């Protein structure tokens, strides 16, 4: 008898456990992500106000890569959006590992209505196949067309609307360390190395940090280096000859970039063993005032100080343009930050376009400030206390052409991998150039 009761109770518990995962959730509670991603995800939902109001109505979902905004930033944004469009029901979701998941979502036809898109993902062909052109939206008329150009499809139409840009190829430095050691902003490479040596000798972890264990952090050398060395914003398309098997040379822009990395490491201003130094330990060290300088983009400033000090970040960190050689020429470049796109499969294009316009025009200032970026909307002027110090020539950035992109992808030309090998002393700059040429040739052969 007891055994039967125990068996019955266990069966009920198991069935109940099964039912918990399958039940329908009421609308007012936050719902779980509908996508089959292995990464954890949360979402914020807003309910429509009961006022009857004319205007666009419907339900739309938005997918973003900013997981840290789900609890703080997005609920505010949804409230303001609903103040303008009370009849649109907006659900915002964010996931980790966004770029890989986005590809799977595209191929399995599981896209949300509005999504974040990047310069390289989706590719030009994929944009044409999966996204709606945005040339007819109100934002298209306002947002800087040079930045819209990064999100064009193969047919020349714009498929992504960037609301913000950041400065890349700049050095973020710790103001306290500079003040303690009486250092001034370096304007040439020699001054930079001297300043780095002083910082390293004083016992800090690094004068100029390189956390090349996470190879993507070396991308700034690729973003800035070749363009700045050649003074040509179109360097990718002009120098990389699609008909040549060895477009990279040791005296060319990429060779100079690898040589620069090698010089910096050999001069002793970089932390010990960059290839064992990861991004997260580096960030912790930077916040703890152990690092002098770091080459990255302006979006890093929001993460360079403890969270409670973000609004006064200008008191703790500053920026200056990276001097690449001793010529005194300093460049900084504005790059587009991730943009907003609308999926072709959306059931409510009017509401989706309303959201894109809202974020790019009405809510632009708040969005841009939350990412410590600058606005691509000429009506919005975002300034920070640390941005006024930048003294450099601004250089535009032109995207890789489709042919160059094809060869780059097919040959797996991985600049960051080679840069991290040079930083760790595994490859000389000459070997890195040879490896780049080998990958380029393989990419050409794959066509």
């Amino acid at each position, binding site marked *: 008898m007891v055994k039967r009761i125990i068996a019955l109770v266990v069966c009920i518990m198991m069935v109940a456990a099964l039912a918990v995962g399958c039940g329908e959730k009421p609308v007012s509670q936050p719902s779980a992500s509908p996508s089959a991603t292995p990464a954890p995800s949360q979402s914020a939902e807003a309910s429509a106000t009961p006022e009857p109001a004319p205007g666009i109505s419907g339900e739309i979902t938005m997918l973003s890569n900013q997981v840290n905004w789900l609890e703080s930033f997005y609920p505010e944004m949804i409230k303001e959006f609903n103040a303008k469009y009370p009849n649109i029901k907006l659900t915002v979701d964010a996931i980790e590992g966004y770029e890989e998941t986005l590809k799977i979502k595209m*191929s399995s036809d599981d896209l949300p209505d509005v999504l974040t898109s990047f310069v390289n993902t989706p590719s030009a062909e994929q944009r044409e196949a*999966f996204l709606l052109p945005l040339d007819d939206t109100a934002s298209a008329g306002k947002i800087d067309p040079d930045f819209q150009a990064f999100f064009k499809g193969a047919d020349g139409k714009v498929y992504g609307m960037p609301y913000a840009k950041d400065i890349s190829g700049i050095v973020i430095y710790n103001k306290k360390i500079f003040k303690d050691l009486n250092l001034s902003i370096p304007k040439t490479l020699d001054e930079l190395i001297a300043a780095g040596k002083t910082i390293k000798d004083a016992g800090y972890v690094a004068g100029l940090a390189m956390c*090349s*264990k996470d190879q993507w952090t070396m991308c700034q050398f690729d973003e800035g280096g070749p363009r700045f060395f050649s003074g040509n914003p179109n360097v990718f398309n002009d120098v990389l000859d699609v008909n040549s098997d060895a477009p990279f040379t040791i005296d060319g822009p990429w060779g100079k970039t690898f040589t620069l990395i090698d010089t910096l490491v050999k001069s002793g201003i970089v932390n010990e063993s960059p*290839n064992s130094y990861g991004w997260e*330990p580096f960030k912790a060290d930077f916040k703890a005032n152990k690092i002098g300088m770091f080459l990255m983009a302006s979006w890093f400033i929001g993460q360079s100080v403890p969270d409670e000090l973000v609004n006064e970040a200008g008191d703790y960190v500053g920026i200056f343009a990276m001097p690449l050689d001793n010529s005194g020429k300093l460049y900084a470049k504005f790059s587009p930050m991730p943009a907003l796109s609308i999926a072709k499969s959306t059931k409510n294009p009017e509401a989706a376009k309303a959201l894109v316009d809202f974020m790019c025009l009405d809510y632009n200032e708040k969005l841009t400030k939350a990412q410590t970026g600058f606005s691509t909307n000429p009506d919005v002027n975002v300034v920070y206390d640390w941005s006024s110090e930048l003294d450099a020539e601004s250089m535009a950035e032109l995207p890789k052409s489709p042919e160059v992109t094809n060869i780059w992808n097919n040959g797996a030309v991985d600049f960051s991998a080679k840069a991290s*090998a040079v930083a760790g*002393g*595994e*490859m000389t700059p000459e070997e890195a150039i040879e490896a780049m040429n080998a990958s380029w040739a393989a990419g050409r052969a794959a066509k």
Partner: protein
Amino acid sequence: MPFPPLQGRYRGGGERQEKAFEISVESGYPMKYRTQERIIIIAFLAIPFALMVMFLIYPTLRVVYMSFTNWDGVLPKMDYVGLKNYKYIFQVDKEAWVSLTNNAIYAISGLVQNIVALLLAVALSSKIKGRNIFRAIIFLPFILNSVAVSYMFDFMYNYETSPINVILEALKLQPVDFLNGKNVNISLAAVCFWRYTGYSMIIYIAALKSISHEIYESAQIDGANAAQTLWYITLPNIRTIIELNLFLTLSGSLNAFVEPWIITKGGPGTKSRTFLFTIVKNAFEFSRFSYAAALAVVLIIMALTLTWIQKRVIMKGEKQYEK
């Protein structure tokens, strides 16, 4: 109950089957016993078989099909291109084969792992105090999730803050750079060694239990020492299990992926990339799905070939022994 109770007397064919048929007809179920048996078997096997086809057989066939196309993983464009991907693998691509040499280091570490596991198994099969505790401690790393273990070793291998280096510095010794070009593959293989030694050991302990005690006793009477006992009695008797463990180790070393992906992301440069790492990177980062599919098919063929060679070598030895 839907079927008549199955009783031992009515099993089997022939006369008994006819009797079962008669009984079933009498009781109103006009079905032969064999048919009922078949229906039960099919009903129970249908779901697992369907799952196997859906999640194992169909994806494998699909991967083979994909390797003959030029799909990039996202667009609906998927054209048949014949052997183009395979020609690229064998004639042009060097990175995939270079990454295969890194797998060799995992295979060597796997061999060492098997030897150590066997010695531990022999030691922990004898009657010593606390042998169950030792067995549990050595097996524990296998239970931990491989991703969590990789993150843990990520911290252990950090040059500045690793506990190992902190201790070495306190002892005034040179700290070790685990993740530089020379050491990185050995460091990553060491993680696998730490995880799987316990697993191999448990399999060997089970195998050792199957050897009869009398052989050991008669060997002892004949004056064999420990080494001779191990070489002439233990090893030949568990030959099949050694083959099984070597197969698991070898195919595991071909599939090494989690440790390089999480700890070094293939770095520094491309020094710690393994074959499977190259496949995943090609598929998801460079959007060359069909090329990655071709690499995967090559990997399957390599694993099958190596297993076949290994089986021939070990079985050949067994044939000689049996003579």
